[in-house]
């Protein structure tokens, strides 16, 4: 039980998960779940109590019981006490101060990662302002490699997302070519299939791989099918570069996705066996609210659960992790303010846990958000050192019916912050005469050459 007094008013929080939920910045999903603070004062009182809570407590208390949840077992069984030692004496509030201090260098943060549980990271994020989330995350570079190297300082990669409402190869190809002319596609060329049929997935994999080989594009492809479909594609000899799966922070929510940790391990091993580019072969997507949506939230707030999903990701050494922050809708993140906050939290928490975080800066038409909100979050994340963002033609995903970031947004943010593409991809663009010495795509150059790519 946690008790705190705020200006003469006494607040009691029954347990750790309640304390975490009440301390969370306001969002509609926690209100929907009935776990949010019911007043501004209660929220700040919870933060005071959380600030005074020792980090060690998180090693004694599980927000979801060890016996009931394999994600909890993964978190506890993989915790590294030696890595935790430098901060083991701190409270959550003291940990925030340490993170903001000069002691928290990239190397120190990298060494600390295995000593942190997702709940510790979620807890400290709840005490951090947006600028804190940016300041600390910007110090932590998580670099991963497949055919390109993603995550280095001074670079920003783009997932080219060429979706088609009918998986039409011509539509997919047109969007890929368009995106390449803007210098996008260095994180991955990743298409969400409209259906989940094995034949359609294999057709899309071959389409992208043929294009990549024909033009010697140093990148990787992914068809974002269910892991079982990708596993079958591997068995059929399809060119699977990356294994994709949506993941969540509880065993129950993962069951709703039709997965468990053993299945992910099996599929990763199968993908690794193809030896197509490197040992980091996983691409995971997450998003706050998925556990509640699947009825598997255990009364835990959605941001803590999201951070637990990163513990799942961490176990499989991924090449890319993408939080699809505004996709789920206003019942989980109501407006631009909540989406912005969640995007910065997810990026910070993922990076602290050692993940190559990208963010799908996005919104649906029933959320209180528009492109001005997307501009703000995109800019903040690029300042924070996000590994990659999405590139969707005109920001309008015509298959998934939501708005993400566009090829133009990639041009904008790379230009204003001087961020270059992944080095291998930049060299390829340079070989086509498409980029200047600053790595930025030249105006009106190169596109015409790429048009020859069209089938």
């Amino acid at each position, binding site marked *: 039980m946690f008790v705190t007094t705020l200006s003469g008013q006494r607040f009691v929080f029954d347990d750790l998960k309640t304390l975490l939920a009440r301390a969370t910045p306001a969002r509609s999903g926690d209100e929907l779940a009935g776990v949010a603070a019911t007043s501004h004062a209660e929220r700040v009182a919870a933060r005071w109590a959380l600030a005074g809570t020792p980090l060690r407590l998180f090693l004694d208390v599980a927000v979801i019981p060890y016996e009931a949840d394999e994600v909890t077992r993964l978190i506890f069984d993989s915790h590294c006490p030696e890595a935790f030692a430098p901060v083991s004496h701190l409270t959550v509030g003291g940990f925030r101060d340490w993170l903001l201090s000069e002691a928290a260098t990239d190397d120190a943060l990298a060494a600390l990662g295995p000593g942190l549980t997702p709940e510790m990271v979620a807890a400290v994020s709840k005490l951090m302002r947006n600028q804190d989330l940016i300041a600390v995350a910007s110090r932590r570079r998580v670099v991963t490699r497949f055919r390109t190297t993603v995550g280095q300082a001074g670079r920003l990669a783009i997932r080219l997302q060429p979706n088609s409402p009918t998986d039409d190869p*011509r539509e997919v190809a047109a969007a890929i070519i368009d995106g390449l002319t803007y210098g996008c596609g260095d994180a991955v060329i990743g298409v969400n299939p409209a259906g989940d049929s094995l034949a359609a997935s294999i057709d899309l994999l071959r389409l992208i791989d043929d294009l990549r080989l024909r033009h010697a594009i140093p990148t990787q492809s992914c068809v974002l099918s269910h892991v079982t479909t990708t596993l079958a594609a591997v068995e059929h000899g399809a060119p699977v570069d990356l294994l994709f799966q949506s993941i969540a922070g509880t065993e129950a929510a993962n069951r709703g996705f039709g997965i468990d940790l053993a299945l992910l391990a099996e599929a990763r091993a199968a993908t690794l066996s193809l030896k197509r580019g490197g040992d980091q072969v996983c691409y995971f997507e997450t998003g706050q609210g998925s556990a509640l949506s699947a009825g598997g939230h255990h009364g835990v707030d959605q941001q803590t659960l999201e951070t637990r999903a990163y513990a799942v990701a961490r176990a499989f050494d991924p090449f890319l992790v993408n939080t699809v922050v505004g996709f789920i809708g206003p019942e989980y993140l109501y407006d631009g303010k909540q989406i912005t906050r969640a995007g910065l939290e997810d990026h910070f928490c993922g990076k602290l846990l050692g993940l190559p975080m990208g963010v799908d800066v996005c919104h649906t038409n029933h959320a209180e958000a528009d492109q001005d909100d997307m501009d703000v979050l995109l800019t903040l994340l690029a300042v924070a050192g996000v590994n990659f963002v999405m590139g969707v033609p005109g920001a309008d995903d015509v298959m998934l019916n939501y708005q993400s970031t566009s090829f133009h947004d990639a041009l904008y943010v790379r230009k204003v912050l001087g961020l270059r593409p992944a080095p291998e991809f930049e060299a390829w663009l340079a070989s086509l005469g498409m980029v200047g010495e600053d790595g930025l795509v030249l105006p009106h150059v190169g*596109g015409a050459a790429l048009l020859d790519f069209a089938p």
Partner: protein
Amino acid sequence: MTDVAAETPEADPFARLRAMTPARVALGRSGPGLPTDAMLAFQRDHALARDAVHAAFDPESVATQLAGLPTVIVASRASDRAAYLRRPDLGRRLAEADRARLDPGDWDLVIVVADGLSATAAHAHAAPLVLSLGARLPGWRIGPVVLASMARVALGDEIGGRLGARMVLMLIGERPGLSAPDSLGAYLTWNPAVGRLDSERNCVSNIRPPHGLGYGAAADALCWLMTSARTLGLTGVALRNDEGLAWSVGNTPPLA
């Protein structure tokens, strides 16, 4: 999708790309940004979608279009649009005051017309679809058409259950996309009762002639589903269109 004037392939090498896909490709550049026309076209389409989300449902106008069919007007427990968007649980339950308006009967089918996330879709497409369906179901005992505001798909479970319907068909405005602000979805549920799972439904989506599925084609698809449901005594994942018909049917409703 955009009002950018079409140019000849000779004048614009990107016209070939544009012709290949409904996606917003080959928009051109103003520095790193979008040209003004393309930016405003996006804002226009977003505005139409936003207005569709927030449009008030007008059940009387749907009743008028239904040309004398008996109707009942009800609402969910969501008091306004903001509550509706934040609290999907409220949109799945009938307002207390409206429960008494639904008397149990002996119905093979009850059709519910609901605003969902696009009243625009319900206004435009629900009544013509209901009339197409009625003409295809001779001999069926079809209950009054229930016109429901602030409704989620699962509100049909409580409505159908109270009316004693053997199956309920929910015609509901789908989440608007930028290119489709008026798409109607149809969800069929056997033996409706509060607590049915989404996996126990079948859906036909993207009903929005002339761009999407037409009324006749949608009605044919739904009649096949309803006839099969009556034969098998179920809906959901076990009931699928495996006959290669020219329409698609799913059992998960991602967009409503």
